[in-house]
């Protein structure tokens, strides 16, 4: 066999032209589908100048939508943290009947369209739903109100923390927890002093994913909230309202807030991922 090149090349390295094509394809794709649309949001948001942008995002209804979005996240995320930690604990530590079913069910919200998720809650709690009449007789309003939005958001976002923690806790094992118990720790001390620090970075990562999704959710919330302007509209719903009213510049201005939230969560994820690597 004749060696064609003086410099040997690793078996896994591709020739230069292949690398260029693959990298180029990736860059073009990301440019077309990510950079251009995001750029459009920013340009459209600023199309009537900075002061118009300022007016659009300080509009009382936009601020109310922002507040509602934050409120929903503040309720839904802690709930999912508790649920996620408990589910991951159960799945990673114990072998029980229905374990495989639980793992599958945790993924359900990722498989089901959010619109369907919203409809399920309407069917359950709506005026003609299963529990709706009883609830409204007791003065509890779920659909077209905050509880419904929180329920739908919680449902859509509950896989994130659990899915982050299950493989982590399975990989870490539970010898440290056993050591803590034998050393005299109570179950609560074991959890706060050993388990929580062990899963800290994974948990934070899950919280960031969960929060970003909770604030950006449209479909499920749109169905249950009734989209009542200034009352039950979250940020994504408010964008839709403005857009439908041909207030393009205002719609993109509010949308830019969601873009900022998204970018902030990306940065947070990068930082956490790096810390996590250092910690292990």
């Amino acid at each position, binding site marked *: 066999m004749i060696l064609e090149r003086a410099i040997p090349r690793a078996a896994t390295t591709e020739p230069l032209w292949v690398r260029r094509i693959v990298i180029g394809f990736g860059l073009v794709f990301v440019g077309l589908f990510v950079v251009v649309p995001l750029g459009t949001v920013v340009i459209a948001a600023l199309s009537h100048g900075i002061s118009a942008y300022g007016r659009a995002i300080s509009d009382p209804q936009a601020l109310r939508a922002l507040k509602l979005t934050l409120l929903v996240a503040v309720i839904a995320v802690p709930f999912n943290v508790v649920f996620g930690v408990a589910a991951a604990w159960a799945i990673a530590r114990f072998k029980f009947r229905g374990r495989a079913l639980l793992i599958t069910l945790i993924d359900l919200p990722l498989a089901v369209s959010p619109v369907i998720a919203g409809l399920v809650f309407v069917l359950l709690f709506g005026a003609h739903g299963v529990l709706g009449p009883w609830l409204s007789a007791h003065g509890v309003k779920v659909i077209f109100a905050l509880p419904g939005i929180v329920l739908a958001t919680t449902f859509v976002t509950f896989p994130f923390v659990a899915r982050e923690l299950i493989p982590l806790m399975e990989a870490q094992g539970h010898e440290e927890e*056993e050591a803590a118990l*034998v*050393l*005299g720790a109570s179950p609560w001390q074991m959890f706060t002093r050993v388990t929580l*620090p062990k899963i800290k970075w994974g948990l934070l990562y899950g919280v960031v994913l969960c929060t970003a999704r909770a604030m950006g959710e449209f479909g499920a919330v749109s169905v249950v909230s009734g989209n009542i302007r200034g009352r039950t509209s979250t940020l994504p719903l408010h964008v839709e309202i403005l857009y439908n009213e041909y207030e393009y510049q205002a719609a993109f201005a509010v949308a830019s807030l969601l873009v900022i939230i998204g970018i902030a969560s990306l940065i947070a994820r990068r930082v956490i991922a790096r810390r996590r690597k250092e910690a292990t």
Partner: protein
Amino acid sequence: MTITVKGITKRFGTFTALNNVSLEVPSGELVALLGPSGSGKTSLLRILSGLEQPDQGTAFFDGTDLGEQSARQRNVGLVFQHYALFRHLDVFENVAFALRVRKRPDAEVRARVTELLQLVQLEGLGRRMPSQLSGGQRQRIALARALAARPRVLLLDEPFGALDAQVRAELRSWLRRLHDEIHLTTVFVTHDQDEAFEVADRVVVMNHGRVEQVGSPAEVFEHPANDFVMRFLGHVNVLDAQLSQGSARVGDVVLDVIHDATSPHRGRVYVRPHEVEIGRAHTVGAIAARVTRVTPLGGGLKIDLTAPALGSNLRADVDWERGSQLALRDGDEVFLSLRRARVFEQAA
């Protein structure tokens, strides 16, 4: 603290890890649980530490029933094979853990941790993280952590299993010296016969969830209770034989054995490699054999032989001096005599 185990049985599904095990560990002794993997030694240790509950039977510390006590109430020191140090805490806080959860005052914690780090000869490493330590250092920290709350007994689960041979040998003799200093009742799990013999006052040989024999290292080695113990403790030549009262026929050779079988039956004869004597000259009753391989080993030579008269290959161990006298080479014809041949009642 005397540990008493009475009739403990533990099953995992259909697997019986411990089958009606009873045992007594006298106060201040260092006892090794020795057996192959799956023999139940680790299960017994985990039951003593409170991490597992027995299906039947009970364990006692100085007569107190442990059935009523959870792991945290028992105050035992447990050392894991893979250290199980808290990865997010530094060395100091790892050792301090048992005192911190007991809410001891800071000054006491500092004094005790400093004392323990001296005991395990790692003073000055308090601010290191576990990931910055070598395996041997980690295991010494794990030991210091286990001792922090002055446990009633110390339990070690294959503590040196994950370390390389040299560190393991150092830590073994260090552990023995430590035990002679603090005289804490200690149960030590290992599958390594040398480790058990070097460290322990007494050895408990386990197999298939049962205790096969309990005794000092010399007792169990010199007087194995059954064929399992004989085979597990060091190498042994196993020869198929026809047994009858007082003798065993192996191939064409008849050996004298202590055996009281009334009717002749098939069985096995056990001969340790150091009980095989090799000579150059034929003597009365000697068995002709041929050397197939000579291997230098630690204290002498290991000699592989084939003996057509016995219908078997066997191994002989000779010391260096005898080895150089014989000057054996592969293919040499030699004559064997068996200084001691053993027979056990039940076959494996």
